[in-house]
């Protein structure tokens, strides 16, 4: 009877150790992964709060029968922005653009050029940063 009890206890004990190893082996990496993703999400939220831009002026230039525009944007936030990840909408439509610099540091200015806008009249400009922060500006093409 005593030997049976020892044998059974040993078998259950080994299985409990195996179960514990399985729990630790899956729980720790899962919690680490979720923590990493949560950390990144928190950083993205912090960066969004710290991001702000201001369109200070839009200059129109005649380009044949069309117009080019030169947009001046100030980084009024406190993080550096990558200008290639910006998006520019004129009257709601996305346009490709060139920029005067790749990185827009805080308290710095960048110039964007959008070419070959057709027609004249008031246009509404929206500039969006890489993390979705935007600013609007209305200008007139004469």
């Amino acid at each position, binding site marked *: 009877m005593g030997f*049976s009890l020892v044998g059974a206890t040993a078998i259950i004990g080994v299985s409990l150790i195996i*179960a514990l190893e399985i729990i630790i082996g899956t729980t720790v990496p899962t919690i680490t*992964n979720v923590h990493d993703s*949560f950390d990144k999400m928190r950083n993205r939220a912090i960066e969004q709060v710290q991001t702000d831009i201001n369109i200070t002026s839009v200059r129109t230039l005649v380009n044949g029968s069309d117009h080019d525009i030169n947009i001046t944007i100030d980084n009024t936030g406190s993080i550096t922005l990558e200008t290639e990840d910006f998006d520019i909408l004129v009257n709601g*439509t996305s346009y490709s653009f060139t920029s005067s610099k790749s990185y827009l540091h805080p308290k710095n200015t960048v110039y964007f050029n959008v070419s070959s806008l057709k027609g004249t009249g008031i246009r509404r400009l929206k500039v969006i940063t890489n993390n979705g922060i*935007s600013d609007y500006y209305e200008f007139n093409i004469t």
Partner: protein
Amino acid sequence: MGFSLTGTHVVFFISSVIIAGAVSGVIVAVVTDVSNSFSERGERVKNQLDLEFDIINDPDNIPISGNYYLFYLKNTGGAEIATSNETFSIFIDGELLSTVNYYFSDSSTKIDEVTTLYVLNTEVSTGDQSLLVVGPLAVEDEFSFTI
């Protein structure tokens, strides 16, 4: 008498080993299942935290191309998004659109990139409306606009 006592002990020993083995098997199997489910759930939570997108249109100027209104979705999260009418559901003013009435310009959208969502113009009326875009793992963004 002595031999029957030994036989009884052997029977007890074998039965206790069988019962302990069965209990151990159940414990290990249950713990493995629960751990796997926890791991899968953790993976889904991780993916959910990584997914984020914004509709970046100008709400007063929704562009139109042929028979489709164009909505721009920017990937502002930390992972590439599979953008198709199977992974995304679109609601306009609360009504779910059929998958034949919209499509995306790209099958996947990398971080910081923009994809265009084409919505058939017969699904969009005039006036103030709301567009709800529900992506993978129920990550969503709502956008109010005027046509």
